[in-house]
């Protein structure tokens, strides 16, 4: 277990009386690609905030490389979910990437040549050279994702967290971002933890899945987790897993008294099947 880059141990988080996370327990090995899957409100963002040290756990703990995380440092690269910028913001993609290197430091930037080389390398790693000189606020959603990923990677973290990077992207851009993250994971040996409410775009690249429902988690390979018995236990009612030509459809089981949450889940995954 000490080899894990991230260990989440029996993590519980209560926010204003609501148990948002309940004994969540999983570990991620170095260089692994992990998908954190769950519908809206399942606790994905809270889990991320706890891992980043922005949310204090009420029980359990989060370990990075086997040690409690230190408040400072760049062991984790973070790509946030929403990123709305003024199109007139005088900041180019490459400026934002450069900030990934040393934003925590005081004073004006030093060692400009070494800084520039590192920025070029990070931009190349995410294929962002072509639009690196445009104002970030004027880039498309997919382009901004690439810049943010470069920003997170430039400090060479051991773990990259991406919060719903596929939300608000069209199918093609989403596929490109998944392929990019998978490539980065392999080539740079950085462990990637990416949250999503859709499982299918990630199925081909995931080494491990952490499935969140009602604040509880099941983790393992997708074969181990995406099973009726495991997911039924997690949801607390019967759930069917249907395989449609390599795509997975998770539905509230027939004969169940079909509670509303289950129905929502069904509707949630349907469009993915229709595509």
């Amino acid at each position, binding site marked *: 277990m000490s080899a894990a880059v991230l260990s989440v141990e029996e993590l519980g988080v209560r926010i204003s009386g609501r148990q948002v996370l309940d004994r969540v327990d999983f570990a991620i090995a170095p260089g692994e690609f992990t998908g954190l899957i769950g519908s809206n409100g399942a606790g994905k963002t809270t889990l991320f905030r706890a891992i980043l040290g922005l949310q204090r756990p009420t029980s359990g703990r989060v370990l990075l490389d086997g040690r409690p995380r230190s408040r400072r440092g760049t062991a984790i690269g973070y790509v946030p979910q929403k990123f709305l910028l003024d199109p007139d913001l005088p900041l180019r993609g490459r400026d934002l990437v450069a900030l990934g290197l040393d934003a925590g430091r*005081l004073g004006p930037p030093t060692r400009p040549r070494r800084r520039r080389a590192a920025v070029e390398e990070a931009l190349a790693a995410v294929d962002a050279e072509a639009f690196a000189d445009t104002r970030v606020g004027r880039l498309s959603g997919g382009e901004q994702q690439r810049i943010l990923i470069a920003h997170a990677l430039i400090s060479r973290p051991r773990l990259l967290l991406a919060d719903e990077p596929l939300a608000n992207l069209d199918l093609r851009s989403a596929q490109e971002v998944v392929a990019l993250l998978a490539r980065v994971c392999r080539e740079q040996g950085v462990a990637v933890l990416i949250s999503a409410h859709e499982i299918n775009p990630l199925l081909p690249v995931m080494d491990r899945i952490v499935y969140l429902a009602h604040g509880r988690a099941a983790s393992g390979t997708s074969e181990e987790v995406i099973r009726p018995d495991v997911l039924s236990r997690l949801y607390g009612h019967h759930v069917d897993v249907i395989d449609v030509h390599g795509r997975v459809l998770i539905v509230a089981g027939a004969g169940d008294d079909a509670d509303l949450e289950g129905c929502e889940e069904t509707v949630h995954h349907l469009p993915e099947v229709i595509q």
Partner: protein
Amino acid sequence: MTPAGFLEPIFAPGFFENEAVHVALAIGTAVAIVTAVVGVFTVMRGQSFAGESLGDIGTTGGSAASLVGVGPLAGFVAIDVLAAAAMELIGVQRVRGRDLATGIVLGAAIGLAALFLYLDTTQGSGNGSTVTILFGSIFAISSGTIPAVVGLAVLSVALIALLYRPLLLSTVSPEIAAARGIPVRLVGAAYLLTLALATALAAITIGTILSTALLIGPAAAALRLTTRPLRAMLVATALGVGAVWAGIVLAYDSYHWPPQEHGWPVSFFVVALVFVFYLLSGLSGLLDRRRARLLDRAGPAAAEA
């Protein structure tokens, strides 16, 4: 003899020898630099309303200072720093709390200003102090104020330079900054302090009501003209200093304009020039877009040819 007689149409006789002009140029330059540097972050952070409000609130400090017989700068600085601290405590750093916190502090302070200005005019000696506080009079500043102005200017710019990188990332994305362990709230509070100082300095130059023009105008124009934050600060500085210098020259010249023997206010010229710069920067943006459209249209055609 003046440096060059042929420059007389621009620089009226006596401009270069005038003590008040020297003081005005020294203070105006220092203030224009600070407001430009701080203003770029004000515009980027979307805190123009806070800047405008701190300017207005300066009226309270200025009028109180005049009541007790202290120079206006001390009053501006004291009240603006106090008001900035109050805004910070009420919640100016939260996007949704910003306007609310600013508005509440603004209302309370302007109420006091109404009282102080009333007392100033009814029992004070200087009946011109209200206009001076609200609209500034840079030619009336004593040379003894220069060290304080330059000192505060250096302090503000040094603080921005020190915090440059954490402040920039916190401005772009407080979320990413917090995830990296940057104390976003502390950085924001330190920035608010520089905003308070910059506003107080602008207030002694062009008055509390107009101070926001110097803070926001050059920065907003610069944002349209360049794509990099440091360059935006340089461009804003050039525009701000340009507006202040040209304003001082024009105001000095205006002694010879109708009505005779009464110069026009410097503040008017400075604000008018800032406004013109802003309009021109918009024009440059329009031209850029037009050029981009033409290139887009020419692109496929050129490829086919």
